[in-house]
């Protein structure tokens, strides 16, 4: 963190924008590093003078000072003196008292008397007298932990932290809500979860924030930022008390990262049971997208971060996602409760019971013997032992699915006439944002359903004209490709052909014998 007077901030447009720096300042960062490196073995006063020169040179002296402030921690200063200065002072002042020093000769007499005591020359004592003053200490070592570009990264982080000193409230969204909530608790901040148009936010304040907009949590906000900035995706908005004027500060991963720390972007799991479940569930390629540690849910006084959420996303790409900030999808939360003490389970169940109005599935280890308790609390319980069976989860999701399919089917007209001459049911479902189940039973007056593909009759006719018995399979596939048809065997079958296979890949198209 920087000191307040090193804060560089622009208030353009009524906002509050810390002046973050980019790679363009790496040269300057390198020069400041160089000044430190070049002053090992010299007095601090000389270092300070060199830094002052650099400040005059640079466009922005505060930036130079900010860099220096961050490097200061890596420099070791020590008192270099043959005799301990405080002992020297006591002796010298005693001697001066007895002499009564006013003029130079009296001064010399006093120094000689004290020098006799230590067995050193008066000039040595003159040097030793205040060798322990900060400005006269010598830089014994300098071990920078940052390269110039890392120094710049750290500067940006420190700058943002400094800006947060004057924050009265901080609102955060993060891809790792559990990390965020535990950091908030560790820092003894108070928080609430609020819904915003762009997702849920954790709003962080202090206990006494009810009574006044207090800035006394600034240092804790600053420390919170370090945790937040080490995660992959986050956004932060703070209310800043800017000498009595309220301003908004926005920060994101684009502004601030932590030097030397790669953001943890891969999904992490608390237990093998969870990791195992995620892998097997993904392999099913359902229309549910699995989300690891979604946003925290408010449960009475507490917050629960469920292990997973299932988002209804027909035709999604697959893979386990981390929190999706903007959610319009239907969502079912899923908590896997492992083997824990009965007290823990009781606490957890009471929190789940207090959950706001959301859909929730709970997988319960059979050995817990609490399945009934959960059923009684109207949560859908999935018993398991060893590992969670995906089939059971699928079964539990099916009632939602049926409802969602029916809902989306209802939202479509009974008959559909896609513009394309050829379109697969999958592509059409995707285009409409529904599952294939939802459009299967519709009528398609302008198309014919061949296999899982809709084809206009005119296209079928043109294809038929170009296909003759005796052509190789490769030739025929090229013709079908020309018309955008993937569903080869279904179309050939519809047109009255069969494939005479020759080995594993090739073949010849023949007329199909009619019965």
């Amino acid at each position, binding site marked *: 963190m920087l000191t307040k007077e090193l804060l560089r901030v622009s208030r353009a447009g009524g906002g509050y924008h810390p002046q973050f720096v980019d790679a363009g300042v790496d040269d300057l960062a390198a020069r400041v590093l160089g000044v430190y490196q070049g002053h090992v073995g010299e007095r601090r006063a000389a270092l300070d003078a060199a830094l002052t020169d650099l400040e005059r040179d640079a466009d922005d002296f*505060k930036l130079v000072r900010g860099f220096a402030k961050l490097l200061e921690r890596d420099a070791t200063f020590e008192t270099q003196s043959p005799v301990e200065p405080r002992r020297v002072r006591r002796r010298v002042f005693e001697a001066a008292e007895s002499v009564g020093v006013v003029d130079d000769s009296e001064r010399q007499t006093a120094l000689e008397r004290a020098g006799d005591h230590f067995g050193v020359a008066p000039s040595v004592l003159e040097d030793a007298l205040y060798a322990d003053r900060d400005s006269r200490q010598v830089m014994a070592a300098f071990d920078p932990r940052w390269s110039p570009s890392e120094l710049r990264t750290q500067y940006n982080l420190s700058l943002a932290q400094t800006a947060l000193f004057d924050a009265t409230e901080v609102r955060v969204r993060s891809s790792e809500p559990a990390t965020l909530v535990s950091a908030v608790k560790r820092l003894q901040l108070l928080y*609430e979860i609020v819904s915003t148009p762009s997702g849920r936010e954790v709003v962080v304040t202090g206990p*006494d924030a009810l009574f006044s907009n207090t800035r006394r949590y600034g240092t804790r906000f600053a420390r919170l930022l370090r945790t937040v900035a080490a995660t992959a995706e986050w956004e932060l908005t703070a209310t800043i008390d800017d000498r009595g004027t309220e301003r908004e500060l926005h920060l994101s991963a684009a502004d601030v990262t932590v030097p030397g720390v790669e953001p943890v972007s891969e999904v992490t799991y608390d237990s093998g049971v969870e990791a195992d479940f995620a892998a097997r569930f993904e392999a099913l390629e359902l229309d549910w997208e699995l989300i690891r540690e979604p946003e925290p849910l408010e449960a009475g006084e507490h917050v629960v971060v469920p292990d997973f959420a299932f988002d209804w996303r027909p035709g999604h790409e697959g893979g386990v996602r981390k929190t999706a900030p903007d959610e319009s999808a239907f969502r079912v939360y899923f908590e896997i409760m492992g083997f824990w003490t009965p007290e823990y389970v009781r606490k957890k169940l009471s929190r789940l019971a207090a959950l706001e109005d959301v859909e929730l599935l709970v997988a319960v280890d059979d050995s817990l013997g609490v399945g009934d308790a959960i059923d009684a609390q109207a949560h859908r319980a999935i018993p398991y032992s060893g590992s969670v069976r995906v089939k059971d989860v699928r079964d539990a999701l099916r009632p939602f699915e049926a409802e969602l399919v029916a809902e989306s089917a209802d939202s479509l007209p009974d008959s559909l006439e896609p513009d394309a001459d050829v379109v697969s049911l999958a592509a059409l479902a995707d285009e409409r944002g529904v599952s294939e189940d939802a459009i299967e039973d519709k009528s398609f007056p302008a198309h014919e359903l061949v296999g899982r593909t809709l084809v206009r009759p005119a296209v079928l006719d043109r294809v038929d004209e170009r296909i003759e018995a005796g052509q190789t399979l490769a030739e025929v596939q090229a013709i079908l490709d020309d018309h955008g048809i993937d569903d080869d065997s279904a179309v050939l079958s519809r047109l009255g052909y069969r494939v005479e296979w020759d080995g594993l890949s090739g073949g010849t198209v023949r007329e199909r014998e009619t019965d």
Partner: protein
Amino acid sequence: MSLTLSYDSGTVRLQGDYPADLPGVQADERSKSGRAPAYRYADLRQALDEAGVTYTDRVLSLPDLSLSTTYDLRAYQRTALDAWHDAGDRGCLELPTGSGKTVVGIAAAVALGTPTLVVVPTIDLLDQWERELDREFDVPIGRLGGGEQRLEPVTVATYDSAYLRADEIGDQFGLVVFDEVHHLGGEGYRDIARLLAAPARLGLTATFERPDGAHEVIEDLVGPVVHRIGVDDLAGEHLADYDIKRIEVSLTPAERERYEAAQSTFTDYLAQSNIRMESGSDYQELVKRSGTDPRAREALLAKQRAREVMMNAQRKVDRLGTLLDRHREDRIIVFTAYTDLVYRLSERFLLPAITHETSAGERREILDRFREGDYSRVVTANVLDEGVDVPDANVAVVLSGSGSEREFTQRLGRILRPTDDGSRALLYELVTEETAEENVAARRR
């Protein structure tokens, strides 16, 4: 559900059903409970009792303390303390410097027999209170500040440490004493009083009124002034008579040249930029501009150089030599606002020096030795300002002043004592002639 009061990070938390319109209480959605700032605790309890509500009170869990003191309160100290009791153990006392505020604070803690927190503005006062309480009380004394964080039922804390830790320790004291309570009006410091639950509160100060009107905040948080003693009420008993001698010295030709060069850089910039240095806010404006405008920054640095030339004038140092020579038999304290000048004088005349760089241990050692007569001369920068137990001197030399009248006279009243043969104490003010510094001195008169 029955009602429970508890302390939570600077607030009183109410769990259960509570009546509407309790003093300071608001509903807190975050924790599904009621909440009031901790300083309303006493009011809150009174309101609940008056309404006949039963409740479980877990706000303070304090041990009983049996404290005693050997101090025999002087009549005016007794009167002040009684006035505070009559006001419900709340409020501020305005007592002149040197009238024994520490004694009054100790007597208050003894009377209530409850864990007590004393909050003080400086490390010197921290040391002084700690020493005094340790001498009086037969319990370990806690200390927050000056590199130590040790909590005990009787604890002394700096305003800074108390500010940082108030929300955490606010349920551990029944009485809080704010020494130099006018500091509590500061924007951040007022939180200290807000976050503590202590029902009994005592403020001590020599000057309650603040120019910024913040004393109204103090009245709310600690209580109004319940008793006032003027300097005149104690005249003759504690305050010394002294004379002031003002000595003008001139700059050397080389200094004059450097001074004029720096000064004109400064005035040129003012002329170009239409800032007319007529008030403190003009200066603030210049400081603000210097953050972005290199020329403003250069002007500010030039102004600083000019000041340094003026304050460090060689002939002031020479003149100080003359004064030290003239007062070889006296006890002398030399003041200057510039740390570097303190060290220059210390090295030149081999004077024991005290600045903000001096460690607490060495500072104490030097003051003790001055008090005991091992040293008869000390040079210092600003650190002896407020309420500190400074040993008597009969000569003071001021090489530079801040222009703040209050600071100036407070120092004098504290330090200067007539000598045993009855001669009056003497204050020298060394000012550089024909410079802006003269205006500072003139304004003070």
